């Protein structure tokens, strides 16, 4: 049986990519969507496997309703904030296919905060 597959829905690459890499190291197949329409397209596609949907913010609530109707077998994990998204990824990792966590989810959160701070500094210097 293939590894379980997570679809991450997140519009900021500096959040999405660290979460995706973390979950891949936890043994999941991971697909990435930057918005609701992309997520729907991936869930509906035969070529992409989605068992679990991890979505942050208001996109998650809209998608949860759509998934309930169109893909009820998909487990939906909602997170309101980046902190909650990292914690939920940690929970998924704990239950995931890897025998042990590659690292704690708090390091993912720290990485995300560092990346966003670096972007903020770069944008201030180069508006």
């Amino acid at each position, binding site marked *: 049986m293939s590894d379980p597959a997570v679809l991450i829905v997140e519009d900021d690459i500096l959040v999405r990519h660290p979460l995706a890499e973390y979950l891949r190291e936890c043994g999941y197949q991971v697909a990435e969507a930057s918005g609701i329409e992309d997520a729907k397209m991936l869930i509906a596609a035969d*070529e992409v496997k989605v068992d679990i949907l991890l979505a942050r913010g208001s996109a998650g609530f809209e998608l949860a309703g759509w998934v309930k109707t169109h893909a009820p077998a998909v487990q939906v994990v909602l997170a309101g904030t980046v902190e909650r998204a990292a914690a939920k990824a940690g929970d998924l990792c704990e239950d995931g296919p890897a025998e042990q966590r590659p690292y704690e989810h708090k390091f993912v959160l720290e990485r995300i905060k560092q990346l966003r701070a670096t972007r903020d500094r770069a944008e201030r210097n180069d508006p």
Partner: protein
Amino acid sequence: MAQLLEARLEQGGEPAQVLLVEDEVLIRSMLAEELRAAGLRVIEAGNADEAWDFMITGGRPDLVFSDVTMPGSIDGLELTRRIKSAYPAVKIIITSGNPGPRNISEYGFFLPKPYQLDRAAAMTLASLGLR
């Protein structure tokens, strides 16, 4: 293809990183999986703005594989122009359904759309010197 990457890893190297910039999510997702299956580490960006965010926050891919026409404040050509200027060691493959400007080869290798996933993966590996 995977054997070449395994050999690179056995030699103590990190897997090569590819920044894949494509707004069509199905194409991006399937090509990303093809490249991961070949042993590459893939960063997925949904447009050129996201890709530039990745670059200015310290991302250092070995290769950028980018579409040209995408929503956002810059397109794929402007992205690759910036990357060539600021990070000249990064290899670049540009793809588009249109021929692009006459001087497109100055930006990097050009792969016309539509393309076969295995052909795109082979071109990526060849550009990285992995086949």
